[in-house]
């Protein structure tokens, strides 16, 4: 693999363009070049780390058949278009864009390179050579909400959101619905950071929440800093997001949602190698093992672990749906009737917060 920053990719692109002159007949089959575009760095201990682990799993599984390039710190915006085009021009035949905000630019570049396959993480639109893939993190958040609802002493929970997009809103709703199911008295305060990455602001948001009596929170940010603040302040705790963050907060991390992207990356690369790749939208969750609940902190009482496991197993065997009615919104209107659910199609259109959410 190679690590590139977005600044020197252009230079390397120039060098790569000269490579074919050096004679390439040496290999029977060229390895498939797979590009990964990350919004942050693999060292974030969270979201980007999860994708990089997935990439490594792909390299381990497919060996010589693939090589991969990672471009880190690519901002969501016009600059990303250049990065995707550059990767396509360098001969990458499969390119993953791992953030929602890359979508418009990927769609544009995908049109220019019909023989290159693009995959847009957490996306909501496809094209003949652009698939989306996602994970049902909100299933994991129902497990977290159950733990939080049962363990809180102040009945004040919180959710540190990144950017107000459907994905995040539904994470909040899943957490809130599960928490209210086991403890109807809880409220869920929401603070948006308006960024995927601003550790100092995230830390201050955590301080603000704790000062207002919050004793358990979930986070949708890419790093562990809020858990460190929870550890320092000695509240009951919070939850790791994207990866196990217990090294940062052995007492405060109650459990974590771990993203396992490896199987998807292996499958997609194999399909491109076999020529069987087709436009698709995949959205697996707990059942398929793409979303995994990490180890439970030993301070969680046994009955809480049992309740959390019941939710987890219920989602896996299909007997429990995180968005099963009746669901009231936070203005008192019934949004989902008894016996109904919010299905995968309706998910993206939800523009309200569940009862108990203060946002």
């Amino acid at each position, binding site marked *: 693999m190679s690590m590139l920053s977005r600044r020197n990719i252009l230079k390397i692109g120039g060098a790569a363009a000269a490579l074919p002159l050096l004679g390439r007949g040496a290999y029977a089959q060229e390895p498939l070049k797979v590009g990964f575009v990350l919004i942050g760095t693999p060292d974030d201990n969270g979201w980007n780390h999860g994708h990089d682990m997935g990439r490594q799993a792909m390299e381990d599984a497919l060996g010589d058949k693939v090589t991969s390039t990672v471009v880190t710190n690519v901002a969501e915006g016009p600059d990303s278009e250049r990065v995707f085009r550059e990767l396509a021009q360098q001969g990458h035949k499969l390119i993953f864009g791992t953030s929602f905000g890359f979508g418009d630019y990927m769609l544009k570049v995908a049109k220019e390179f019909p023989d290159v396959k693009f995959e847009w993480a957490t996306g909501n639109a496809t094209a003949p050579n652009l698939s989306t893939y996602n994970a049902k993190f909100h299933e994991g958040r129902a497990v977290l909400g159950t733990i939080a609802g049962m363990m809180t002493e102040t009945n004040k929970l919180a959710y540190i959101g990144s950017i107000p997009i459907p994905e995040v809103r539904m994470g909040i709703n899943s957490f809130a619905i599960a928490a209210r199911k086991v403890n109807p008295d809880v409220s869920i305060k929401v*603070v948006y950071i308006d*960024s995927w990455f601003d550790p100092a*602001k995230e*830390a201050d*948001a955590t301080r*603000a929440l704790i*000062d207002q009596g919050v004793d358990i929170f979930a986070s949708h940010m890419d790093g562990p*800093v809020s858990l460190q603040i929870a550890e320092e302040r000695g509240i009951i705790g919070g939850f790791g997001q994207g990866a196990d963050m217990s*090294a940062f907060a052995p007492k405060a991390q109650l459990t974590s949602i771990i993203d396992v992207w490896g199987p998807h990356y292996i499958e997609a690369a194999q399909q491109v190698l076999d020529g069987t790749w087709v436009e698709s939208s995949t959205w697996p969750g707990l059942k398929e093992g793409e979303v995994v609940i990490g180890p439970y902190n030993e301070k969680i009482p046994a009955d809480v672990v049992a309740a959390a496991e019941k939710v987890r197993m219920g989602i896996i065997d299909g007997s429990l749906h995180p968005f099963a009615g009746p669901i009231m919104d936070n203005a008192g209107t019934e949004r989902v009737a008894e016996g109904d659910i919010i299905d995968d199609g309706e998910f993206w259109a939800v523009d309200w917060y569940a009862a108990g959410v*203060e946002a």
Partner: protein
Amino acid sequence: MSPDLLIGLIITLVGASTPILLAALGELVAEKSGVLNLGVEGMMLVGAVICFAVTYNTGNPWLGIVAAALASTAVAMIFAVLTLGLSANQVATGLALTIFGTGFSALFGRAYTGKPLALFKSIFPDWLATHPVLKVLFGYSPLVYFSFAMVALVWWFLAKTRGGLILRAVGESDISAHSMGYSVIGVRYGAVAFGGAMAGIAGSCFPLMLTPQWVEGLTAGRGWIALALVVFGAWRPIRLLGGAYLFGLVMTIELYAKAGGGVAHVLPSQFWAALPYLATILVLVLISLRQSSNTSAPACLGKPFLPTN
């Protein structure tokens, strides 16, 4: 707002304000001597990563702060040699310094990601530092008290000492200072070095006070806020102090308002995120409305000095 909550807000506000205050104070001195160093963000990141590394390896945050100051001074010297020694363009060199600092800190810091650090807490006895009310005075990291001391020191130096007068003269009229026999370049080297050291100490606030970890890009743009603050404070240390705390308040009150629920959510979160920048524009407009010698930039700011004989 309950008293407890108010105390919590103040403590968070002080934490948010301290790094931008320290970095802006250093930049203020550099700009007063006529040097515009846009590399503050890069120097802060170098300070942050070196502070993390040294504190992590030695367990001594004091050593971490000293090392951060030295490392950022060294980085500032690259800038000084290029812009003062070789008269390179200050804007371009400063931007290059930020890019360098960002890249260097990311590379150097790779060995330290994923490792937690203990916070550098108050050195007052516990009964003061954790007292429910008195902690608002005694509960801070030593870096906070240091920042206040530096405001006083910089103010005193610039306003009351001969050295400060020479530094200001160099920034207002390099030719005159030169013809009076002062070393314009020498003074500017000193001012840039001071700016570097302060940026390094500002960077050390991140791993020691705010986010006890290292991760690439940790300062997330605070260096640029510090640069804006110097203009905001009209190149005066006391106004700078007020400006830093106003910025800190705007950044912090948003989070407390949202965490409190209620009225804060009537306004979209993007509005809150834009508030510090709106405040900057507003103050800049007010400053330019009543333009006076008190509020304008040093006359030689950003201009290379080329002695003719």
